[in-house]
C-alpha cells in the first residue's frame, strides 16, 4: 500500500520536496467517545529523505503532527529524473517507503 505521495521539483539548483503520508497519528491522549478508554498512541516517529542514496533530512516526530502528515523541505542540488526516497517508521514498528523522480 502506498501510503506516501511525493512531489519533487528542481528549480534554480534547489529541489523542493513535498510529501503527504497517510497515517492516523494518534497522540495517545484522545479517548474513545463510546468506551471512554484511551486510544493508544500510534504515530510516525521517524521520516527519512534520501536523494541518490544520501540522507538529506531526518525528521523525528511526536504525536503532535497532524493526521495524514504533510512535510515539505528543500535541498541544494538534484536534477530532473533523479530519485527521491521517503521512508517512515511509526511507534508500532510499521513503516513504508516510496520513491519518486524529481521533475
Amino acid at each position: 500500500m502506498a501510503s506516501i505521495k511525493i512531489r519533487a521539483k528542481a528549480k534554480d539548483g534547489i529541489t523542493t520536496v513535498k510529501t503527504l503520508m497517510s497515517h492516523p497519528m494518534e497522540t495517545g491522549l484522545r479517548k474513545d467517545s463510546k468506551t471512554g478508554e484511551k486510544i493508544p498512541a500510534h504515530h510516525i516517529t521517524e521520516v527519512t529523505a534520501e536523494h541518490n542514496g544520501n540522507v538529506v533530512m531526518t525528521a523525528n516526530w511526536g504525536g503532535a503532527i497532524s493526521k495524514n502528515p504533510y512535510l515539505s523541505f528543500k535541498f541544494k542540488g538534484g536534477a530532473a529524473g533523479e530519485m527521491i526516497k521517503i521512508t517512515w517508521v511509526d511507534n508500532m514498528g510499521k513503516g513504508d517507503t516510496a520513491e519518486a523522480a524529481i521533475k
Partner: protein
Amino acid sequence: MNLLRRKFIKTATFVGAAVTVGTGVLVPQRAIGAYMAAAFEAKDVNGALSAAMGTDQHSASDSIKLKAPDIAENGAVVPVTVSASMDNVDAISIIAASNASPLTSTYQLSAACEPFVSTRIKMGKTADVIAVIKADGKLYSATKEVKVTIGGCGG
C-alpha cells in the same frame, strides 16, 4: 593522583555521553532505535529543547521566519513553515509551548539542505509556537502566538 584520575575518568565519561547525545543530533544517519523519545516525553519547553537540541539556551533571531496562522480554527491542523537566512543549519525543532509534550517535531538537516521545513501540527490550546534552529552549534528562535479555537490534542 588517583583521586584526580577518578575525577578525570568521571568527567571524561560525562563528556563522552554528552558528545554521543550531540552526535545523535548532528548526524542524520542514525539508527531508528535512536529516536529521541526523551525529547518528546519532556513536559516543558526547556526540557524538550535540552533533550532534542542539546541545550535550552536560545536567543531570538530576526533571520528566522516562522509562518503560522494568527488564528487556527482547528487545533488539529495548524500549518507551520520555518525558514531561515542562516548558514550551517544542522537542526530545526518546532515547539507548541502549551502542549502536553511541547516538542512537535525535530528535523536533522544535512549540509545540502536549505534551512526550510513546512508541516502541519496539532495544538491543544492557544499558545506560542516556537521555531528553534541550530546553526554553528548555537540555538536561535522565533516565536509566534497562535490562537486556537478548537483544541486538537486530547478529547
